[in-house]
């Protein structure tokens, strides 16, 4: 259900596995995050940006898995989910590479959409991953965006 890995993943294999495990699901949402060449996450000023040549993803082994399990568990408590899958890659990545997969299956469409969105919001700012971006000009750690922290607030009741 939860994987943190350097290797790439195959969407079709994950989808097939989810369909097989999700019983009588009516809705499957798969979110894939890709490395962008133009990465606005580091700054809100587009004039600042130069092209990403590669990205290095560091994480906190052990704690990462615990946080992902916790996020998946929280989503399953809030929505009637039949299956949840989270894959987050670490290590060196290049523009166009897959970074993250969040997939949810439910009887109901809204539950699948909302829970996948919820998990992504929490992944962005509650799981111990850090991105270092290397461009032609420099290497630097990407700073978290205020908008990502704000996104979390939507889910507080």
């Amino acid at each position, binding site marked *: 259900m939860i994987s943190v890995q350097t290797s790439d993943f195959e969407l079709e294999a994950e989808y097939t596995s989810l369909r097989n495990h999700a019983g009588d699901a009516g809705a499957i949402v798969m979110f894939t*995050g890709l490395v962008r060449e133009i990465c606005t*996450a580091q700054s809100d000023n587009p004039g600042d940006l130069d092209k990403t040549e590669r990205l290095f993803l*560091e*994480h*906190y082994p*052990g*704690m990462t898995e*615990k946080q992902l399990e916790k996020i998946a568990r929280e989503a399953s408590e809030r929505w009637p989910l039949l299956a949840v899958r989270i894959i*987050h890659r670490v290590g060196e990545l290049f523009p166009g590479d897959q*970074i*993250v997969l969040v997939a949810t299956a439910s009887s109901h469409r809204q539950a699948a959409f909302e829970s996948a969105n919820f998990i*992504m919001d929490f*992944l*962005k*700012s*509650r*799981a*111990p*991953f*850090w*991105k*270092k971006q290397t461009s032609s000009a420099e290497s630097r*750690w*990407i*700073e*978290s965006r205020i908008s*990502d922290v704000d996104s979390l607030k939507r889910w507080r009741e």
Partner: protein
Amino acid sequence: MITILYFASIREHMGKAKETVELTENITTVEALIRHLSETNSAFNQLCQSANSPLISVNQVFAEPSSPIVFGDEVGFFPSMTGG
């Protein structure tokens, strides 16, 4: 003895990923540990004075300054997270 882990920009700033610290009897909370590290390590002291103070975990769970520290704990210091 406890284990301290540093990650990402904080790892680079500290020049190390890991260290071990002897627990004296006055180090019973995260806050006391931070005070101890600030007094004995100027790089750590600098970190605490910066605008973005580090996030803290104890045994791989998010912690507060008031969280207790006991023998054998693993304490992590890291910048705000940027996953997804």
